[in-house]
């Protein structure tokens, strides 16, 4: 898969750091900074396989260390596979 680093990566990083700093410090976040942060994070949002396409095969450990893949995760009618940012934050 092509590596698709945006040209404005450094500028985006500065916005994200400032947003994160204010939030962590409990300082108010101006609406404009918040909007820039959201736009920076969601720029060129890609969403992966389309309906009708197959998902890639995968094998990943679960919270108990067991290796899991689609055949043992799926129910009889399918699997809702959720990709989210982080459990920790």
């Amino acid at each position, binding site marked *: 898969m092509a590596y698709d680093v945006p040209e404005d*990566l450094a500028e*985006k990083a500065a916005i994200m750091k400032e947003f*994160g700093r204010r939030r962590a410090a409990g300082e108010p976040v101006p609406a404009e900074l918040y909007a820039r942060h959201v736009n920076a994070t969601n720029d060129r949002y890609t969403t992966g396989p389309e309906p009708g*396409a197959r998902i*890639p095969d995968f094998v990943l450990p679960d919270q108990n260390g067991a290796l*899991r893949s689609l055949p043992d995760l799926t129910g009889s009618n399918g699997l*809702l596979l959720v990709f989210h940012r982080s459990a920790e934050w």
Partner: protein
Amino acid sequence: MNGVRIAAVSYDSQAVLKEFAAKFGIGYPLLSDHDSGVIRRFGIFNFNIAPGLRAYGVPHPVNYLVAPDGMVTRKYYVPNYQHRVTASAVVLREFGAVSEDAAQVTLRNGALTVEIGLSSAKAFAGQEISLYAKFSLEPKWHVYGAPVPNTYTSTSITFDDPKIISQSVTLPEARLMEIPVLGETLPVYEGTFQGQGSLLLKFPLDAGRIMLAGRLRFQLCSDTVCEAPEAVAFELPLTIEPFMMPTK
């Protein structure tokens, strides 16, 4: 849950996921994609986040409904991460199931009984949650769909609550019924029917228990008599989870 199971993928380590599952009592698999390899192979790696930032390696959030053979049947995503569709909202929309501890309220008014509930008991600020409304009418009574002349009141559920910044509640298509005593043909609902909706929560919201204030409007009529229109207020509790930003 109608034969569909759930699994969640994140870039967290297995240790973090184990702690998270224990803390929140999560029974479904939390999969550790710690080097973001699977995230990359799905084509959803978020390249906007520079190496060195705590969030480096996260995906663009997407939910896939996958058939047992691996084919994507539906895909859910909202480009603004503050307005992500919750997994439980997906379950409600697709499968009509709600989590056991989700809030619900039952309103009774003569011939009409309405059960209104949320898809989950907890949500984050800025998320979209689902709502259902199960209506049940005694025989020979009906309520109105839309549009109706302004002498009648159509059926609606609305939230006049600043914590909800966007809402959409839809009822099924009403049946056109000729009502001889009124000399009109009007869209009506009879018997049992169900509406569904989605509510977009404001961001930010303080963590803790909140009450969402809504109003059910309707007018009950039989083949011989119409009651006065009603506007019944109700509240649904919801726990807002704390939103924690990365600290470094």
